[in-house]
């Protein structure tokens, strides 16, 4: 649905994006994660055709944003970070105006009404935009992004400046959106990205540091896969059996949990799933595996490790 290749953007001497490449499949909810100034908004502004790239290509639904901008923009709904509205318009007038811009003609009244209900501004349609609260403005921003049922929805910091209850509602909205559209959202709030997105790209100083699912990112940043296993049997037998397992590098006895079972911290080599090696080694030695648990790091740790690594 979205193909980004070698995207580079310079502002004078400053390199805002440096050879960024990624693809987004239909139905994916992609999170762009990065510190302030990492290049998230620049990437989104280029994806939506607001600004041009210094080099590189962006193809949205088969249309190059530089060569065929109108066709590419026709499939995009965009919620910018800095929400700006014509304050002198009423909510209904504003949405009508956006419908005109997006050439939404057939069934417009019903379409606008259904989106207003979906984002929770159906009782605000006669209000002047300038009189709306921050939360309702954000919802109005969502509503205008959803008009015309775009195939791609791009959300730049959609929960910035909202109170906790509003954040929960907006997250629900984005999750629901992911069922019908391809979504790219940016945030510097790690928990938010983790809660909503099916895939994360970590940007730092204009470069892609990581591109994976939240779960895999958590594992990969460990350096080696670790887990806690509860194994029945004498500790020396367990340690002897696991020392012969190919992927296991370290076994550390933690504590006794049951009458004849102990917990062990097991560490495997990088990028290898230690669970299969553990199972086979214990089966060969006839040592029952009672339970296992992951020691995945939080995404926050992952992010800080990735950024610190640069």
């Amino acid at each position, binding site marked *: 649905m979205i193909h980004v290749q070698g995207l580079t953007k310079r502002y004078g001497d400053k390199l805002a994006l440096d050879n960024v490449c990624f693809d987004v499949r239909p139905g994916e909810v992609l999170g762009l994660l990065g510190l302030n100034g990492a290049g998230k908004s620049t990437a989104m502004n280029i994806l939506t055709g607001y600004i041009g790239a210094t080099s590189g290509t962006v193809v949205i639904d088969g249309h190059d944003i530089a060569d065929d901008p109108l066709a590419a923009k026709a499939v995009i709904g965009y919620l910018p970070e800095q929400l700006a509205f014509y304050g002198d318009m009423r909510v209904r007038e504003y949405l009508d*105006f956006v419908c005109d811009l997006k*050439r939404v003609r057939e069934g417009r009244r019903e379409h606008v009404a259904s989106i207003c209900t979906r984002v929770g501004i159906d009782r605000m349609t006669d209000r002047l935009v300038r009189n709306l609260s921050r939360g309702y403005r954000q919802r109005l921003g969502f509503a205008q992004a959803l008009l015309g049922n775009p195939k791609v929805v791009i959300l730049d910091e959609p929960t910035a400046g909202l109170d906790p209850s509003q954040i929960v509602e907006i997250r629900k909205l984005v999750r629901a959106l992911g069922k019908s559209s391809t979504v790219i959202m940016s945030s510097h709030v790690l928990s938010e990205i983790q809660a909503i997105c099916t895939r994360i790209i970590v940007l730092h100083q204009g470069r892609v540091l990581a591109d994976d699912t939240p779960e895999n990112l958590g594992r990969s940043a460990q350096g080696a896969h670790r887990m806690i296993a509860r194994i029945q049997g004498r500790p020396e037998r367990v340690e002897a059996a696991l020392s012969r397992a190919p992927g296991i590098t370290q076994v550390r006895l933690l504590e006794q949990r049951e009458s004849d079972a102990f917990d062990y911290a097991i560490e495997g080599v990088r990028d290898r799933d230690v669970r299969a090696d553990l199972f086979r080694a214990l089966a060969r030695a006839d040592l029952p595996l009672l339970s296992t648990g992951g020691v995945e790091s939080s995404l926050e740790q992952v992010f800080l490790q990735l950024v610190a690594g640069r």
Partner: protein
Amino acid sequence: MVAILKREFRAYFQSPLGYVFIAAVYFFSGYYFFTYNLYGATTNMSRLYELLFPVVLFLIPVLTMRLMSEDKRLKTDQLLLTSPVPRLGIAMGKYGAAVAVYLIAISSTLLQAVVLAFFAAPHWPTILGNFVGLFLLGSTLIAICMALSALTESQVIAAVAGFVVSLFLMLVDALALVVSSSFLQALFRNLSFNDRYTPFTLGIFELPNVVFFLSISALFILLTWALLDRQRWS
């Protein structure tokens, strides 16, 4: 383009700007109509149209100062530039809205001609020629001031730049007399809006003058488009 034209036209009347502009044009045209036509007891409206030349030059920067600069300042340009609307359509829509408000304002002169018609027979071809001249003058200046507005986020700077251009256009005839270089003299004479507008007020409808105003308008609309498009490549 039509969506932007409608939105901009409505915006003129959701703030005092549209009303103030129309009221100012009505005031000056009414004043000149009273002093030269009613008080002077004549159906010749050429003097009125001649006197509206400086009025239009000074009022149009007020009409156009927010056209492009406000969108840049408020960041509402992000909505327009990320919508499936050609950037030339954005410039044309905004231009069309300002021209429509201007047309409403100068239509007062046609109303005055109708009033005259109750008492005597005005020479309608001359009046219509004058009206077309005033329309072309104003719409050309709107195009120039819109391009100036696209250069800045500040409405005040856009208005001041518009006044400077207006002042230059009024003084350019005098400049042609004070410079010694024949090239500069020819340049200033050819740039003179007054020389192009005056024939209309004399009842002379010359096609080159019409083409002059239309081509300057087209040039500055394209310049506004280029300024909008610059953002994609800067």
